[in-house]
């Protein structure tokens, strides 16, 4: 799985929870290979691991791009499952 796809999957999986399980456990449970770029962070909660990766200037542009996609989808969902019509820059 490409880094981009793994990050997207992790951001979606941790939308509500994601503090109490390690990145490696979540990846294992959902058949996601821990990306090479996140090695060394696999014992941390996924949200924390992603935030630490975001502080890396080299990984930041990709993470921001994926986050933008995830966010569009997140905001398109209202609690009733209807699009809210929100525009994100």
């Amino acid at each position, binding site marked *: 799985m490409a880094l981009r796809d793994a990050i997207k999957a992790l951001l979606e999986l941790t939308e509500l929870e*994601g503090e109490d399980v*390690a990145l490696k456990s979540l990846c294992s449970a959902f058949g996601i290979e821990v990306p090479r770029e996140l090695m060394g962070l696999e014992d941390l909660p996924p*949200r924390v691991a992603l*935030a*630490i990766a975001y502080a890396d200037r080299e990984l930041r542009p990709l993470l921001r791009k994926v*986050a*933008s996609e995830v966010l569009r989808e*997140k905001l398109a969902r209202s609690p009733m499952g209807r699009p809210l019509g929100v525009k994100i*820059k």
Partner: protein
Amino acid sequence: MAYPRMIKRGERFDPIDVARQTERIVCRDGARKYTAFYATGVYGGIATGYVVGCCLRCFFCWTDFSRDFPEAYGKYYTAEEACENIVRAARRWKVSKARISGGEPTLCRKHLLELLELIEERDEVKLFILETNGILFGADESYVKDVAGLKKVYVRVSLKAGEPGAFEARTGASREFFELPFRAVKALLDHNVRFHVAAMTDPRIMPSEERRRLIERLAEIDEFLAANLEEEVCDPYEGTLVRMQFYGLNPIEFFGREGLGTT
């Protein structure tokens, strides 16, 4: 101004003033009041020092009554003593993460910075999670600069509302201070501190439109922060139930009998 404790609907105060008042109670000569040190299962296992005192009065707050009556709870620990207790808890429960929680860790700045410096030197702790409401970081960017150089520090900023009126209603802090946590977020980003943002978006507390505005507001600062947002859920801790009742909410209606385990 009388020291605010649990709030009733409509009460408000200056959170910076409350921070200073609280510090006069919980900080003494570089020491700070703590109620306990042990490890919990959150973050996959983390050694925790529970501090006394906060500058907000959220009606949904889970912490014990030391938040409301800081004079009556806890003992003073120097930074060295607090560090030793945290490291001891980490060793005992075989965890390598640590934090201080319960109250607002950024009160007692001297104590916190000394503690963080000491933690930097300890091999037992690999990551120190600083959980904050962002009020004091937002009020003084130099405080963010102080923690920015520390390698083990990771910050979790918890937002309480997506608009000024809701911020005042839920926390008791006047709406004019609503921007401070967002300023903290911006400052943490500008200083390349490792962090994520959490928010009490439980739909029983925050309407969906406000949640949307909060996420949009975060996205204006940085889209990754908004996508990586930790959405908090309100749980029926003892302190929460009492605070809700005092505030004027019926906890049974809020959580339901099933949610309270009374069915």
